[in-house]
């Protein structure tokens, strides 16, 4: 069954988020025509509610990057968030894409409601980072930045 929202989200990022949040309960996502869909393997009410939250709160987490462009070998990008939803959280899931392909994933710590993560030793490229809560109501944020070759 499909959970649908009238909002066109980027399919590749939404897919990452859906697989993080729903695991094997989703076969993937679709977008286009002004709609986004999460495809669920079964009509399971908890999964339906989770998928519905995901579509509603995708990109809703307030996140920031220390800059939008960096130089290789220079100061590392620092990703941060003080979104009130993180008050009782201990970590955020983090997936880093370079040129649209996943380059790494892991978890960043949240301390006293604040998240901060430094990404070191990045090679040049266009980066997209998905940050997602691992507990409580679903929320995620997306950051984009560029790393250029050292001049």
């Amino acid at each position, binding site marked *: 069954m*499909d959970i649908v929202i009238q909002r*066109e989200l980027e*399919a*590749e990022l*939404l*897919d990452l988020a859906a697989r993080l949040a729903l695991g094997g309960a989703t*076969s*993937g*996502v*679709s*977008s*286009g*025509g002004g709609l986004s*869909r999460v*495809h669920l*393997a079964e009509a399971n009410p908890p999964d339906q509610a989770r998928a519905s939250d995901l579509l509603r709160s995708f990109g809703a987490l307030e996140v920031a990057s220390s800059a939008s462009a960096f130089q290789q070998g220079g100061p590392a990008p620092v990703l941060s968030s003080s979104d009130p939803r993180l008050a009782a959280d201990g970590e955020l899931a983090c997936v880093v894409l370079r040129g*649209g*392909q996943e380059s790494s994933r892991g978890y960043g710590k949240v301390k006293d409601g604040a998240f901060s993560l430094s990404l070191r030793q990045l090679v040049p490229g266009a980066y997209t980072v998905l940050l997602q809560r691992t507990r409580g109501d679903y929320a995620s944020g997306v950051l984009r930045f560029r790393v250029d070759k050292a001049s």
Partner: protein
Amino acid sequence: MAWTSPKTWSSEPLTSLDLNTYMRDNQNHLKDRLDASASQIVSGLSELSSTSNAFVDVDATRLALTLTTHGGDVLLGFTGAAKCSRDTGAVYFNVAVDGANYIADDGIVSCQIAQSGDSRKLKPFSFVLLITGLSAGQHTFKLRWKASNNNTVSMDIVKLHPQFWAKEI
């Protein structure tokens, strides 16, 4: 209007009842079948995309056809272009007839993008499929697709305009 097997006349009188049944009604039946067709040419402001590894509707409204048939087979056709996001990705196409995948397993046609750096480039797709065994009445046909290998499949409907059609034969 149902088809009635033609009568073989011998020497009995030609009645208006027989003429209406075997000539008028059968010709109407054949004409209705010839006229029964449905077609969509799709345009949009952004491409259609999916990451699903199970068959899902490509577009549940714009790549969907409703056809009232008269007991004949239906010829379905699709022409369009799709791409994969990964070098090792594949896109598979199928059709749903009245909500169920018509072909099992991996569907009708697929394109496996080779390790040649041609991911994210559109490939042409076209197929014609004969749907048999349909009862007379209203039927829905939807184009479906799926992706493989953590791949995102996309269809251009902005600059290219896929066609999906059905015709009773």
